[in-house]
Structures are given as C-alpha cells and as structure tokens.
C-alpha cells in the first residue's frame, strides 16, 4: 500500500428539506496515491457522514454520472486524483449552471430536453429492415462523426460554457455535438429537420466561440468544432434559401 496522507475536502451541502441556502462542510479524509476524488467522497459517505449525496456509477469515466466542480473546475470525480490537489484542501461543488437538487446532485432535466430536441437518431433516406443487411460505411466515413459520438453526456461542457450560464435557452455544446454527429453520418438523411434547431437563436448562433467546452471535455469530443461546423452549414442554409427556386429544387 502506498503511504496514507490526509486531505481536507470541503463539500457544498444543501438539503432541500432543511436548508434555506447552500453551505459548506469540511471533512478530513485519509487517502492513498491512487484514490480519486470520487473515492474521497465515498469515504466520507461510508465512514463520516452518510448524508453526503452525489451521483456515481461506473467509476471508470464512461457513464457520465459523477461530474462536479473541484476548485471551480468541472471534472469527472472518478478520474481526478486527490494526490494532485494535496496538500491544499479541495472544494467540491455541484456542476455550475444547473439547479441543485441536493448537495452535489444537480437537476439534469434541462439538458435531457435539449438532447431530445436535436433529432438525435438516424433518419434513413429509405426505410430499412434487418433483412436488407448492414449499410456499407468505410472507416473514413466513420471518422467524419466518430469523435462526436464519444460524448458521455457528463455535462462538464455545460458547466464550463459561459453562454449557457448567461442564458440557458442556448442548446449548448453536448446537444449540438450530437446533432453534428448525426448530420455527419453517411447513413443519415435528417439534416433538414435538424437545421431548425441549428438556425434558431438558441442554436449555434448562441455560441460565442469561447471554446471552454472542448477544453473540459473528458472524451475529446470537441463540441466547439462541431458548433463551428454547424455554423458553416447554417450560413449555407441561409443563403441557399434565397437561391432555392434555382439551386435546390423545391
């Protein structure tokens, strides 16, 4: 076993049944080198205070449950390590820009609604059944969208996005990246439906290109690039509409 040290973990606490406003409570947590922030929180829950509330599940950075702010940075608690903060104390808070349900648990329903709004599924040009066999899709065609398909919906990008913080009508990074994922898929013919979301004021034009979403993304999805690509599509769509009688048929 590696050496055990002690770190102070300061957690935002808020119990909707008892508290008027959030407050902070600090816990003294023994840790070893390989312990994640999540394991620190689990230690608190198991041994010090069973009422500390947070979401977690896979503990291997794929389920997207355990996002939170550590020292004001959005991170996945399962793949951030206490050793990297020691000897300073750390402050753990719920993800920014979302309503708090309890302690570190945020209300993610706004995001889920946005995800649903982008037609996040394949719209085939022709209806297919399994009897038709698989579509062909070359590795190069997969590269067009695979990066965007890596999103684990952890919401770190929303917590980092100043635009979403100012106005949460903005569709936001992860949902727009997913939109770009389906638009870029060679098997999809649903781009037209999705352009409504893209063109809307709260669509891509809500983004001011700060790029923090891509910086904090634990899966290198690069939502900023996706949004930019959508902006190009949106611009083309805008101009093509003037040309429609000639350029596009009806």
């Amino acid at each position: 076993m590696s050496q055990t040290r002690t770190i102070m973990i300061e957690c935002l606490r808020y119990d909707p049944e008892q508290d008027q406003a959030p407050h902070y409570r600090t816990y003294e947590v023994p840790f070893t080198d390989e312990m994640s922030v999540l394991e620190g929180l689990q230690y608190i829950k198991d041994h010090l205070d069973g009422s500390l509330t947070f979401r977690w599940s896979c503990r291997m950075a794929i389920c997207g449950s355990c996002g939170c702010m550590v020292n004001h940075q959005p991170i996945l608690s399962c793949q951030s390590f206490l050793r990297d903060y020691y000897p300073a104390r750390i402050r753990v808070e719920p993800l920014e820009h979302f309503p708090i349900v309890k302690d570190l648990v945020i209300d993610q329903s706004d995001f889920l609604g946005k995800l649903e709004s982008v037609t996040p599924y394949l719209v085939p040009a022709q209806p297919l059944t399994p009897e038709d066999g698989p579509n062909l899709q070359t590795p190069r065609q997969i590269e067009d969208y695979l990066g965007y398909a890596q999103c684990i919906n952890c919401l770190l990008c929303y917590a980092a996005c100043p635009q979403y913080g100012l106005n949460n009508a903005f569709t936001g990074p992860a949902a727009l990246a997913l939109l770009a994922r389906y638009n870029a898929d060679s098997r999809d013919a649903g781009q037209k439906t999705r352009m409504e979301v893209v063109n809307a004021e709260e669509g891509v034009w809500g983004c001011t290109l700060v790029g923090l979403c891509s910086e904090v993304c634990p899966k290198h999805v690069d939502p900023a690039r996706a949004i930019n690509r959508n902006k190009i599509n949106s611009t083309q769509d805008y101009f093509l509409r003037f040309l429609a009688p000639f350029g596009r048929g009806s």
Partner: protein
Amino acid sequence: MQVIQSDVVIIGGGGAGLRAAIAVAQEAPGLSVALVSKVVPMRSHTVAAEGGSAGVIHPDDSLDKHFDDTVSGGDWLCEQDVVEYFVGQCTREMIQLEQWGCPWSRRDDGSINVRFFGGMKSPRTWFAADKTGFHILHTLFQTSLQFPAIQRYDEFFCTDLLVEDGRLQGVLALCIATGEPVLFQCKAAVLATGGASRVFGQNTNAGIVTGEGMGMAYAQGVPLRDMEFVQWHPTALPGSGILMTEGCRGEGGILLNKDGHRYLQDYGLGPLDPWPRPRAMELGPRDRLSQAFWHEDQAGRTLQTPHGTAVHLDLRHLGEKKIMERLPMICELARTFAAVDPVTAPIPVRPAVHYTMGGVLCDVHGATPLPGLYAAGECSSVGIHGANRLGSNSLAELLVFGRAAGLSAARHARETPAASAALQAQAESRAAVHLDMLRREGGTRVARLRQRLHEIMEAGVGIVREGPRMAQACEQLAELREQFRAGVALDDRGRAFNTEWLTAIELGHTLQVAEAMAHAALLRQESRGAHMRIDGFEARDDERFLCHSLIHSQGDAPPRVTHSPVTITRSQPRARVYGGAAQNQS
C-alpha cells in the same frame, strides 16, 4: 400515493430494457410503456461493456459453430433449444443496431469487421473499438427518443413487484428526487435490472449492479436459477477491478506470470504454437483462465502489487498504431487508473467478478413462472450461458431477449384486464415498510454491512470452493441478514434524494441474492464451468449434476434449493477441451 397507469412497465433502462421498450413501441403500437430506471438510461452498466457482441457474419463462421461454442463454453448446462433461437437472432439484432446508427468498426471496404473472443471457433465479435457497450447503449437510448409511446421515469427506484390474483399487476417505486412512493399499475412488466456482481468486493461492475431486480422477483416466489455460477473475468486491474477487455487478447495480447512465462500452456490450453489460434491459450474461456490464475497464485508465480497479486497482460508487440485503433479506451484506462502505458509496458491484471450467469428463471420468450412478469438480460436466466458465459454473448443477449421479452409482455398486456383495486392497499403497506426505515433508531451502517458481505463471499464462494467454507458462508449470511433486519443506521433521515436510504433497501435484496448463490454452490457437489471445487469434487458429474439449480426464497429463513433438468437437443455432453486437444476432438 401517486398512481401511474401503463400497459407495460419496464424496470431498468440499460440495453435489455431499452431494447424491450423499443420493441413494444415499434412492433406493438397502441400500448403505453413506462421505462422506469434508477439512473438516467445512458448511465446504465451496459455502457461499460468493452469488447463486443456476437453475431455470425464472417464467411468462416456458422450458426452451428456459435451454438457449439456457446454450449461447450457453458459446460453443457445451457438450454439448447434457447441457444438455438439465440444464435439465429443475434446477427439480425446487430444489423438492426447498425441501421439505428451504431458505429460498428469496419473493414476498408465498409463491411462489418469482426474479431475473435475467447472460446470461439471463428471470429464472431462485432465491435465498436473497445467501447461497444457505450455505443450500443447510446444508440438504443437515442433511438428510443423517437417513440412517444415510451414514457421515461428516470431516477425512479423500484422496490417491490406487486402481485394480486396470482399475477403481476404493479410495481412500487420511489421517486428518487422527492422520495415519494409511486405505484405503477400495469398489465405486464419486464425486469431488465442487470446482474448482481456487487455481491463481491473485487469486481468489474458499476456501483449500481446490485441485484435488486433478482431480489424483487425472488421475494415474490419466482425461483432464481443457477446462481452458483459467477464469472470471474481474468483480466481486471488489481484494486479498482476496472476491466481490461477480452478484446485485448482477441487482438493478440498475451498473459505472462512473474517469470515471463505464458503459463496458460500448463493448464490444458497449449501448446503455444501456432499462435494465434482459436480456443487456445489466451483465447480460452474465462472460467479456465481465472482458475489458471488461481493455481499460478498458489504456486507463488504471480507478481506482487499494492492491491494483491497479478499477472501481466502484454500488448506491446501489437504496436502503438493497432493498440490506439482497436483498444483506445484500454490505453486511457491503464494510463489513468494503473499508471501504465500499454504501448510500452505490460498491464498488471487479476481476476475480478464480472457477471452472474444465473438469474430470474424465464423461458425463451422471457416469461417467468409469475404471470405478467418477464425478464431479460443479466438479471434473467434464460438458459444460454450455462455454467460459464462466453464473452460477447451478453450484449447479444440483451438485444435478442430484450426484444423477445418486450414483445411477449406486449402480447400479454393485450390479453389482460386492468389491474385490481386491491393493489393500492398493498402498495401502501410496502411503502410504509420502506419509509419506516427513515425513522428507526440504532442499527448497523450500510458500509459495514456491505463490507461484511464482501468478506463472506470472497472467502466462502470465490473462484475456488470447498464445502466447509461454503457452509460457513451460508451461516454467516444468515447472521448478516439477521443483523440487517435488526436495523440499518442512517445518517440521512430526509426523503429527498436520500441515496443512503436507497442503498439500504438495495442491500436487503443483495443479501438475499448472495444467500441464493452460496446455498446453490454448496449443494452442487461437482466442478463445472465457473463452479470449481477442490474438496473431492474436482470433476464434472453428469450423473448427479447435469441439472439446473432452482433457488426458492423462504422469506427470512435460508432458501430451499431444488434441481431441474437441462434441455439437450443435439449436443450430448462430452469432455470440455481447449487448446491442442480441442483440435483433435473436432
């Protein structure tokens, strides 16, 4: 109490639950579906599956080979008629996922690529790099969003199945955000709650894989089947238990003991050459590989790590390009959680509990003995895994039997009258029991009970088993259940998002599932598949034990175990051999 009416309730929003929901919405229009899950669907444990999913598509492969690999892999404890149906449906489901957008890895010409997994005669594993479960789950979730018939109840924790007039008529759940009980009245329900690997401490599974779906059915008199068969995956990171996919070996990775020796050749899996070849060495089945580790460990030929002994999984010879293309997540996981770069160093690995072969008894249609209740996926025992599941068969199972169970539940719902009025009183009384936990004083902390459970199971019902130790585990589990009934100490007495309380309810189910495993294991006096004994029952005993275990709940008392016949259609049990011996046999 809030009452929600729905034709079909699906409990669990992972791969099986989502596939069932889509099947009802798409193929049985007009029915309402409530998809009730304790986590938002894309958080479900399907997300963590790495290596891939089986489906015959390679020119060298055939349905017969998939059947044979599955039945011999399961040490002839599979329901062969169910396996026959399964292998016939897998490829259809893989193609269906493709048409829903799943980014299957491809060959240069754009056709589907498949890889080898352990125990396969031909390459059969469809994969999306090493994030297959992630892509399957997100594809299913996103596809499900186009069906208005599917009403989602995210973060609703199901506590009880409600039975009136001998049939399932409702499901009691707690809305996690508020802690308020909700009664789902239904005509049919599909249990798709996943496995129970968190019964053990060292495991590859997410924290939510706690077996309460099995516990809920078991409490209503539905037998659990073959619970003694627990799969140890041979390659997990020591300590955390994080999985290093079998795909590592499918792509050519090798296992070495502390002397750099490929020890699997000493356990009936050799000879070494020619390499790679199917069903040999590192491409042997999981039970054999985990058992080989145990022997190496006993012989002192494993490496010491801060979290127990280990062997080396070596990928270096594959080269950086192939590793990054085929196993990118493995690379990231090893770097983040083990501080090892697989491109330049071998990864220390050891076995960890990965999968529960057994589960809620059901037939090929997903129907359990309780009218109106269906089951699919890891929580179920439909009969395809036998005594040892073949890698890649579980993702395929979610899809094939998720659809089947959904359609069966839909048929049942159409033929069934509305729920009885007496249900609400039953729901109220069950809810009162759960709410009472918030008021009780004294008792033992959840973490302490859980820790004790892990100790008992690791010591008594591990990779290698002996009668006296299993008997002791049975006694200790009875005591632990008694301790649980005496009270769970909760720091959190509120209702809103009280995860401590929910974990305590969950643990009640988990303890019963653990007890079912231990009792079934004790009574199986033979070695078969993942159930390995070293106390005079080292061999398979078809005369006495070519049969399933059925475990029946006796409430607070220890369970009763009976046995039932195995359906054998065309593969008579024979010696289960891998490596060179397997080539001679076929």
